[in-house]
């Protein structure tokens, strides 16, 4: 199976690879895995005033998984929390031309986004409760 040009590009030049400190203010961390294939994905967002100002990822998996998470971080930057919630795995499939056998990689990326957003929300709610 040949990877699409876009997948190869993200694989060779991954955008936003790395990580933030988990307990840093405004950072949300999503850690997901696919037990079927053993891929592991960590996606983090940094939020200021309800807007995602930065995003980073680390992925252990196949080219499509790396490309999906790399693309996801690109898309997340500059989006509001609400806009970020709208990102669907099908958008990733379309953008990267993923074949059917690699759709689960895009699902993993969507799960990672959701997990990161949920983690950020949880932390923000906690901080709010502490302040009260």
């Amino acid at each position, binding site marked *: 199976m040949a990877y699409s040009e876009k997948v190869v590009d993200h694989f060779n030049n991954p955008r936003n690879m790395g990580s933030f400190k988990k307990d840093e203010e405004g950072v949300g961390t999503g*850690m*997901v*895995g696919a*037990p*079927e*294939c*053993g*891929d*592991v994905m*960590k996606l983090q967002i940094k939020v200021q005033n309800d807007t995602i100002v930065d995003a980073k990822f*680390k992925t*252990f998996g196949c080219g499509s998984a790396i490309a999906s998470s790399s693309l996801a971080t690109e898309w997340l930057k500059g989006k509001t929390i609400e806009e970020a919630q709208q990102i669907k795995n099908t958008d990733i499939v379309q953008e990267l031309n993923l074949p059917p056998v690699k759709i689960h990689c895009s699902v993993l990326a969507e799960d990672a986004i959701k997990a990161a957003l949920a983690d950020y929300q949880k932390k923000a709610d906690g901080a709010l409760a502490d302040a009260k």
Partner: protein
Amino acid sequence: MDHQHRHSSSPRELQMARSMCWHCQSEVSGEYFCDRCVKVQPVSKELDYFTCMGFPRRLTIDPRQLESKFYELSRAFHPDFFQNKSAEEQTISLGNSAMLNTAYRTLRDPIQRAEYLLDLEAGAVKDIRTSPPADLFEEILELQDTLDEYRAADRASDTAATLCAKLQMERTTLERRQQDMENALQQLFTQWDILQDRGEATDQTRAERDRILKHMRDILSNRTYVKNIVNDLVATIS
């Protein structure tokens, strides 16, 4: 014979085929062949692989017993023996053989067998997909970074030597962990079989079954994650 049977493929009719011979309509008491007209009977697609091979839903299966059952049924269903029979019988023999092969391949491997059992029993265990093991993921990603560093380092340098020693240690630790997981799985298999053999249906046994299945799901998933990183590790340092 009438032509209706050529098109009988709806689930209802297939089910009927298990109790009534598709050919002579007499009741089938034998497992795979009609007692009266000796025609081969289709194995229902809804039958699970354990039942198909005549084994209870246990996780310890004697491989020799499984193999001999496989050979026995292969001889009974093999399309070669149906070359001179009717088109219906040829189709049935082909379908049965295909199902038998998949069933045997699935049940032969202990891990695939357990995965299959989990699929079968998944309905009983709500929320069988538990939260991902965050610690393990952190470890894997960290190890991945070290592997990248090692790949980028000059092989003759001291840095490479230090990294290689570190990776060797990680490998030993992970391989020990793999062994621990295999042992834990083996124990769970035994526990499951004991419960199955008792065959009680109390709330307590149900809770116990769920606990075992869930634990099994977790270990099987973690096992895949660890296996992948170990493969990567071994390929890089050897």
